[in-house]
């Protein structure tokens, strides 16, 4: 509001019309009659010390500033001026006599004639330079006079282009803001044009901003002090003021452990008798073969303990503890299966590994699982949490579905399965567009496409900027902040979010660091040159890919078309058969009535018409639904056709659209935003990395990715810096995540925070050793898994002992493994796997979900009656599958670094009562029944046979659901339960065979509800 005062007053000053048409009568200047009046009658209340309503009328400048509720003087328009209004109406002054008419008319005249001053109050502040002006121009003008549009031939992104002016000549006259057309247009509200504010998501400049523009012009349009763009060296050192409050600002090297470079060499503790072959680790030869040379062992020495065990063992010894005995073979089989592929071993797999006679069965099992395509589905999912994967844009209202996000999901799964080196994986996700040219179709290959899909990592956060109202600069900055948060906490383990508004309290991250970090991404996410999610997509494919898609889809689409028309005519032929027979039987009058009724709109029909239409739709020309119900054979035929159509649809190659992030080669300069507020620009900054992290040997250096590249190369420089071999954070953070996922808790408990507020590592040397081994071994994730999984530490039993609990109740020292509940995906996927309904299809568009009226959300089965793994369901933020959310599938806001594990009754309710879960239990029972069919029910009536069949079934149920054989007492109790359940079902009216089957369903359903199914030792 207040901004208008200045604007309006100044308009009056520069509007020649007002002055020419209405030559000022004497006494229209503030000083002549208004000032004295105000001092006389108003300042008792409206004075600096006790300004009523925030209004100070004691000086000219204060009058212009207005009150809390805005301006009180609108130059040229007394009717719109609060000052005039309150005296005119007699509301003011509240005490003493009203002002006489003449006095009021002075005020009116003063305002009407432009509210002028003989001695205009200074609007001046400190000296201005170009950096005060550029952010204003970017914020308010660049939408029409910038990269995308140059209305009137004018580009206002730089001072040089401003000075050049537009088609109509210069827009600013140095030293004379009053004569500068741009000021005039802004003040007259011609620019930005009223009708286009919402179209271009621009708001008018504030009066302060206009005043700044004026001062800059009046001051002779000085240059920006530094160069506008980033050829300064890394600005880290140049921001002493902002960094002063950061703990590590003294640059004596990082004091915090995680900011020190990863050491070159991490000595492994020497073995001692406690660790070397005291038999504890190799009990009954169950594959616990410490010391065997396995790749991923990080140069393990013969006869020496596994390096992981050397570190863990040393700490245990220091506290007077030892490793727990090894887990049993079946426990290990179950543990590693869930851990690596997220599914229980099948009965066959269990059998195979249990009976494998080789000494190296365990290593081979680990290798087999790492080679399984299911591995990428399991471990890719962890990374999707970090990225904040979702199939919708999110936001308060629409939560529009993201049609192509799944390509990024598949890319992640693929990358894990291929064991893509982690450094390469990060390069693609952070700067895939800068790895190879994609703009030239001739250079596009599948790997170029993959690079671009990888950049989807930067596009996973909530994006509301496709909305009509949520695409202003603050919303864009919110999105950018989320992206920076995901990158910094997810990849670097550093929380930068706080530094958006102020220098970090604890970590050496200054506000300039934050904005330097932001500048790295400015070429992609430029709040002044924005693309909403609707525009931010690329159609890129290699010529071969395009040709393949074209030929493949042409054939399939034509087959689909044929099948669809066949389907339509099939239904129609049945309908015609009815119609031909029935229609003629009706009286002509009825026929006519029906014809009329059918034309009437639903809801507008009379009761009789309704009845007639219903009759027509059921008896005379039945609808498809009616026909299907009446003629099962037609239903079957249609289902067959639908299945064929769906099967064809699955084979369609998707459109080449990629939800990518790419540099458009024209980043706006980046300014620190004071307190993170979009309209409070501070100093300009260049792209750079946090000063506290710049101690390593690999500097952050921005270069064009290739000669003549359109891209700035900023993100590529960042990605390369991140993956330098001694980077303090990247490898540590990653190996810690992997450790956390294998062991249930990270060496640093706070997976996404390695800063001062994060937890201390329980085993810092182990962390460094793992990270060093990982980097030196070529950033191979699969090797890392093996290093961890082949350790004795991993192969321990999870059973607690009072002695160890006494010393280490939270198992920080890892004297045992941890009992863990299955996560959301593993619960659901296991249910489906046991039901034999797991759809093996990998990748592709997500499976649709359906929301029931009460809010329950489940997926639709495929045309084959199968269900896909949980990561392939449509994960729409506002409609997450219930089964996943109750088991702690996280809300991605914007991502999730570490899932919570809750134990609440809503989980029990869904497993006990949900129809789908019950149906899967039935399918599970059917599979068991098919393998061990029948019993004595129709036979000779001997109890024994039936019980033997029951026992065999029980054995299978236990092996499938719990990955172990039942103990004898469990078999006895289970057989008794089955018999009892059978009796109860018989008592409920089922025949013998049916009762036995139902008993098995009930048993299986109960097993799926049991703790043993939900937990892994």
């Amino acid at each position, binding site marked *: 509001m207040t*901004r208008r005062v200045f604007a309006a007053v100044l308009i009056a000053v520069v509007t020649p019309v007002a002055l020419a048409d209405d030559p000022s009568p004497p006494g229209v200047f503030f000083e002549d009659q208004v000032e004295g009046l105000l001092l006389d009658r108003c300042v008792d209340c409206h004075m600096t010390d006790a300004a009523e309503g925030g209004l100070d009328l004691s000086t000219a400048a204060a009058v212009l500033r207005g009150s809390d509720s805005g301006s009180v003087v609108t130059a040229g328009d007394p009717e719109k001026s609060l000052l005039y209004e309150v005296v005119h109406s007699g509301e003011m002054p509240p005490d003493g006599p009203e002002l006489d008419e003449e006095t009021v008319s002075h005020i009116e005249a003063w305002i009407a004639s432009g509210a002028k001053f003989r001695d205009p109050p200074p609007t001046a502040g400190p000296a201005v330079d170009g950096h005060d002006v550029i952010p204003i121009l970017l914020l308010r003008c660049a939408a029409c006079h910038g990269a995308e549009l140059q209305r009137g031939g004018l580009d206002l992104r730089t001072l040089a282009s401003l000075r050049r002016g537009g088609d109509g000549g210069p827009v600013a006259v140095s030293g004379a803001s009053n004569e500068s057309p741009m000021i005039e247009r802004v003040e007259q509200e011609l620019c930005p044009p009223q009708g286009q504010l919402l179209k271009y998501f621009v708001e008018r400049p504030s009066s302060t901003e206009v005043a700044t523009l004026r001062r800059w012009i009046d001051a002779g349009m000085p240059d920006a002090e530094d160069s506008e763009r980033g050829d300064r060296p890394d600005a880290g050192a140049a921001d002493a003021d902002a960094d002063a409050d950061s703990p590590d600002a003294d640059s004596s090297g990082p004091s915090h452990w995680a900011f020190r470079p990863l050491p070159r060499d991490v000595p492994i503790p020497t073995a001692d008798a406690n660790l070397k072959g005291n038999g504890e680790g190799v009990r009954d030869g169950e594959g616990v073969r410490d010391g065997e040379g396995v790749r991923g062992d990080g140069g393990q020495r013969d006869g020496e303990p596994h390096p992981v065990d050397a570190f863990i063992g040393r700490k245990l010894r220091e506290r007077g503890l030892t490793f727990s005995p090894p887990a049993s073979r079946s426990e290990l089989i179950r543990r590693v299966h869930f851990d690596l592929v997220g599914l229980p071993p099948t009965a066959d797999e269990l059998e195979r590994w249990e009976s494998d006679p080789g000494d190296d069965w365990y290593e081979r099992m680990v290798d087999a699982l790492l080679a399984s395509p299911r591995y990428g589905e399991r471990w890719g999912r962890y990374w999707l949490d970090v990225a904040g994967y979702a199939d919708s844009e999110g936001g308060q209202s629409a939560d529009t579905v993201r049609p192509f996000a799944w390509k990024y999901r598949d890319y992640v799964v693929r990358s894990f399965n291929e064991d893509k080196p982690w450094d390469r994986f990060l390069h693609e996700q952070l700067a895939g567009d800068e790895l190879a040219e994609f703009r030239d179709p001739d250079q596009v290959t599948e790997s170029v496409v993959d690079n671009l899909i990888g950049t989807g990592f930067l596009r996973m956060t909530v994006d509301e900027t496709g909305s009509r109202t949520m695409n202003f600069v603050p919303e864009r900055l919110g999105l950018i902040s989320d992206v920076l948060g995901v990158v910094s906490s997810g990849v670097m383990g550093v929380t930068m979010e706080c530094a958006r508004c102020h220098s970090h309290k604890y970590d050496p991250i200054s506000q300039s660091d934050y904005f330097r970090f932001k500048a790295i991404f400015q070429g992609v996410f430029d709040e002044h040159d924005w693309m909403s999610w609707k525009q931010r997509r690329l159609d890129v494919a290699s010529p071969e890919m395009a040709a393949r898609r074209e030929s493949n889809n042409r054939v399939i689409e034509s087959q689909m078309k044929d099948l669809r028309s066949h389907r339509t005519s099939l239904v129609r032929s049945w309908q015609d058969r009815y119609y031909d027979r029935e229609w003629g039987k009706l009286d002509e009058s009825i026929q006519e009535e029906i014809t009329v009724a059918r034309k009437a709109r639903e809801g507008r029909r009379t009761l009789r018409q309704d009845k007639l239409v219903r009759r027509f739709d059921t008896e005379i020309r039945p609808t498809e639904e009616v026909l299907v119900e009446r003629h099962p054979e037609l239903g079957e035929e249609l289902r067959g056709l639908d299945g064929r159509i769906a099967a064809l649809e699955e084979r369609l190659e998707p459109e080449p659209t990629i939800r990518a992030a790419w540099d458009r080669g024209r980043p706006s300069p980046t300014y620190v935003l004071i307190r993170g507020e979009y309209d409070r620009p501070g100093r300009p900054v260049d792209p750079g990395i946090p000063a506290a992290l710049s101690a390593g040997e690999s500097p952050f250096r921005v270069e064009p990715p290739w000669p003549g590249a359109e891209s700035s190369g900023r993100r590529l420089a960042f990605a390369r810096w991140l993956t330098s071999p001694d980077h303090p954070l990247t490898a540590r953070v990653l190996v810690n995540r992997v450790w956390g996922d294998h062991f249930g808790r990270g060496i640093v408990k706070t997976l996404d925070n390695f800063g001062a507020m994060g937890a201390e590592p329980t085993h810092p040397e182990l962390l460094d050793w793992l990270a060093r081994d990982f980097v030196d071994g070529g950033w191979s994730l699969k090797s890392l898994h093996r290093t961890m999984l082949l350790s004795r530490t991993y192969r321990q039993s999870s059973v607690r002992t009072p002695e160890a609990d006494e010393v280490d109740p939270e198992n920080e020292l890892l004297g045992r493994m941890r009992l863990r509940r299955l996560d959301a995906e593993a619960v659901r996927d296991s249910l489906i796997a046991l039901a034999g309904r797991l759809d093996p299809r990998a990748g592709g568009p997500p499976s649709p979900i359906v929301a029931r009226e009460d809010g329950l959300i489940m997926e639709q089965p495929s045309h084959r009656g199968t269900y896909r793994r949980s990561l392939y369901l449509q994960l729409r933020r506002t409609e997450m599958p219930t089964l996943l959310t109750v088991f702690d599938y996280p809300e991605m806001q914007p991502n999730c670094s570490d899932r919570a594990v809750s134990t609440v009754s809503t989980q029990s309710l869904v497993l006990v009562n949900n129809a789908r879960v019950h149906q899967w239990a039935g399918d599970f029972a059917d599979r068991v029944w098919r393998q061990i069919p029948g019993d004595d029910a129709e036979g000779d009536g001997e109890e024994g046979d039936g019980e033997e069949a029951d026992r065999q079934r029980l054995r299978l149920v236990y092996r499938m659901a719990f990955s172990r054989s039942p103990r004898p007492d469990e078999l006895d109790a289970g057989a008794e339960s089955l018999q009892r359940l059978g009796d109860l079902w018989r008592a409920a009216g089922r025949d013998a065979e049916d009762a036995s089957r139902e008993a098995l369903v009930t048993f299986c359903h109960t097993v799926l509800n049991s703790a043993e199914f939900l937990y892994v030792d």
Partner: protein
Amino acid sequence: MHPTPTRRSFFSSLSKGLCGAALAELFTRDGLIGGGNADAATSGRHDLKPKPPHHPPRATSVIHLFMNGGPSQMDLFDPKPALDRYAGKTYPGNVEKIGNVATTQIGDVMPSPFKFARHGESGTWVSDALPHTAEIVDDLCFLHSQWTDHPNHDNALYKIHSGRLFMGHPSLGSWVTYGLGSECEDLPAYVVLDDPLGLPKNGVRNWTSGYLPPVYQGTRFRTVGAPVLNLTPEYEQPETIGSAAKELLERLDQTHRERRPNEGELDARIESYALAARMQLTAGDVLDLSNENRSTLDAYGVGDPVTDSYGRRCLLARRLVERGVRFVQIFLEDQPWDNHSNLEGTLKSACQRTDQPVAALIADLKRRGMLDSTLVVWGGEFGRTPTSQKVGNEYTGRDHNMQAFTSWLAGGGVKPGFAYGKTDELGHEVVENPISVPDFHATLLHAVGLDAHDLSFNRNGLEDRLTGVEKPRVVKEIFA
């Protein structure tokens, strides 16, 4: 849709899967649920069985209306005429102590855009931002002198919920349920009604059980659609089968549990099944707001788009407490009280969403005679500064202020129409009767019959407490 059984319909129709089993559960409270805190320490078992309080309680239930973001005390409850006097001037005290940012960014003293007046017989000051709350001030007890240790949301939220600045510590609700167990066998002891618009800052960690066994964590009820999904079986199954299945499950879980000593997690699992079974009996009834009459719904603002969501949750809170739920917490999404800019507009909007439902809740509890036994707590994680930030003429909000903030309590034996503690003339610092967060927690625990020192948990060989090492002060002066 599946009709939810009432107790009566349950007895008349025993064909509801687990319900039959639930009956058995109700009548035979066997070894599944047993042992108080003392036993728990040795057996590693934890449960929700009612436990004796340390001293006679004033209240048996708590409703925590959590106002995330840091509501501004000087715009709601703690009028500061001096703000007008100093308006537009530099803060007269030590500027260094203001806010949570570098001192160069502190603006001038900012008067409240709201008008204060005295209300009720107690003549309590409330601003016109809260017209409904103004009508119930005679039932409220204001704490004007709270302070906390951190000016950032994350840490201050952890502090106010768990007594520590960092994550991983049990929340107040978890401590209360740990200390007292539950008097309600068929609903969770600790229910969280979060905002359907989204989670508050810090998300589900606000109601974590931390290092306490997970049986004490808050259970979220959905606040759109059915509050609890899958409350009844969606398939046909004779009741006899349901009971047999329940017994079988108990046996399987017991066998599993016995071979894994000291796993509190497994106890929680078992308990969650037992509770699920019991919830089937009554939860449907409790959660169905259509049992309320129109005037009650109107009073809470149900149906009005502005107040509907919060009103429903307040009403649900009353119904839950009525059934004996120990601790109910209501959250708002993100941080609506974090009024850094446009305070007039954003604070007003937060008020409009909550004011009427909150006042209706107090009035309703009182009318039903429940206010004596229910402690209602209204407040956020910190307060706000008397200053704004000066940027041209634009700056219109207040910064975080950890040095003073106001909460209020109602019911649970606190003095109605009472105000405790004072802040300085600008409302920036406490000058009389300061209440630290541990003091606040100790006071709330005191109201429900728990002693902050005696309520401890052995962790890593150390006794850990909600209120930390130093002995907190129970603000006894506020109790009637």
